[in-house]
């Protein structure tokens, strides 16, 4: 079934998210939003593969993206990105080194995407956009730091509790083996944690 895509509606959703980060004058906001174009990815498609030269910033309108890498013959899920979040080939963008991870659509996914170069140009042109860029990078760095802390210091039970509290919506949309890998536990352990949660609720 063909879906009609209302790009203006999508850009408004991006506008709403940006206002959470920074107060951008309307004319700058319009210029910023205009560099984003619609991109669609069917379920299971690879949006960003390893060693990618992809230099786009993506904003998810609908759908779900899984970020994972291969280590010792296993797939390790590092994150999930759902509606109203950004993703990018951050490793290559910031380190200039080849990325080793995959960004894959877990569902049919609709994004707004902009070349990072266009965003850099606008950042050079407008202080407020530069500030916006800094605040977005700071937020994603903070998420990375918190994720590191959780991996180091929280038990499996605690990591599960955090996940349920903060990412409950993702839980029902993602195969359990990916959630187990993301939490750093075996699928059997995840089942045990889920059962424990259910019995606590009863």
């Amino acid at each position, binding site marked *: 079934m063909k879906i009609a895509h209302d790009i203006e509606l999508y850009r408004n959703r991006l506008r709403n998210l940006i206002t959470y980060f920074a107060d951008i004058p309307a004319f700058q906001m319009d210029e910023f939003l205009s560099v984003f174009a619609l991109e669609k990815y069917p379920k299971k498609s690879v949006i960003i593969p390893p060693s990618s030269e992809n230099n786009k910033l993506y904003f998810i309108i609908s759908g779900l993206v899984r970020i994972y*890498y291969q*280590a010792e013959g296993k797939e390790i899920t590092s994150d999930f990105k759902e509606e109203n979040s950004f993703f990018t080939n*951050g*490793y290559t963008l*910031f*380190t200039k*080194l080849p990325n*080793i991870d995959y960004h894959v659509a877990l569902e049919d996914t609709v994004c707004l995407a902009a070349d990072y170069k266009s965003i850099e140009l606008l*950042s*050079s042109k407008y*202080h407020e956009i*530069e*500030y916006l*860029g*800094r605040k977005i*990078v*700071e*937020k*994603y*760095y*903070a*998420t*990375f*730091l*918190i994720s*590191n*802390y959780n991996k*180091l*210091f929280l038990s499996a039970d605690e990591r599960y509790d955090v996940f349920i509290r903060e990412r409950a919506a993702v839980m029902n949309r993602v195969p359990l083996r990916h959630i187990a890998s993301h939490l750093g536990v075996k699928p059997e352990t995840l089942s045990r944690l889920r059962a424990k949660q259910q019995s606590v609720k009863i």
Partner: protein
Amino acid sequence: MLNTFHDIDLYKGMLKKSLLYFTYVPETELNEFADIFYLKFYPKNTDIITPDNKELKGYFVVSGLVRMHYTINNNEITSDFRDANSFFLNGYAIYAQQKNFDYFTTLEDTICLVADWDKVELLLSAYHSLESMGRKIVEWHYAESMRVSYNILFMNTEERFKIFMNERSGLMNRVPQKYIASYLGVAPETLSRLRSKIK
């Protein structure tokens, strides 16, 4: 160290040169930024930052050496080092507004230029060039953290040791071997073996 003459202009010159590595900043704005930094001396074995640190500051190392470490399950892990011409800050407190769990401790008498973070934010808001510099600095911090994580995940011990020798060989004679071993995630005996092998 306290009684030695300190050429603050020289130190601020070092700071400005290191900042220009990130992006171009016009001289007047760079000078205004450098002027919010003040001199601090930390004797050897001083904790500059401790867990749950609430002071939000940025640090530039003029001379000396700082070790970043944390304790988990009663094991002390060395996560990184900072020597002259490098920056450090409490990323958890400043970027994530969370309690930090790590220590920043001097391995030698250390001289830093220090800035209060609220003054940093004020200047970044005042000047576009400084805002750009601020963004590139946080991008650099993020990049370094990602690179360290990936090296731990994907490189074997020997590869990590070779990177260390390529990029930070100057530390080998300044840092107790047990801390370098911990940083590389190996036992001290393994580090000795790796050093002999390279020789």
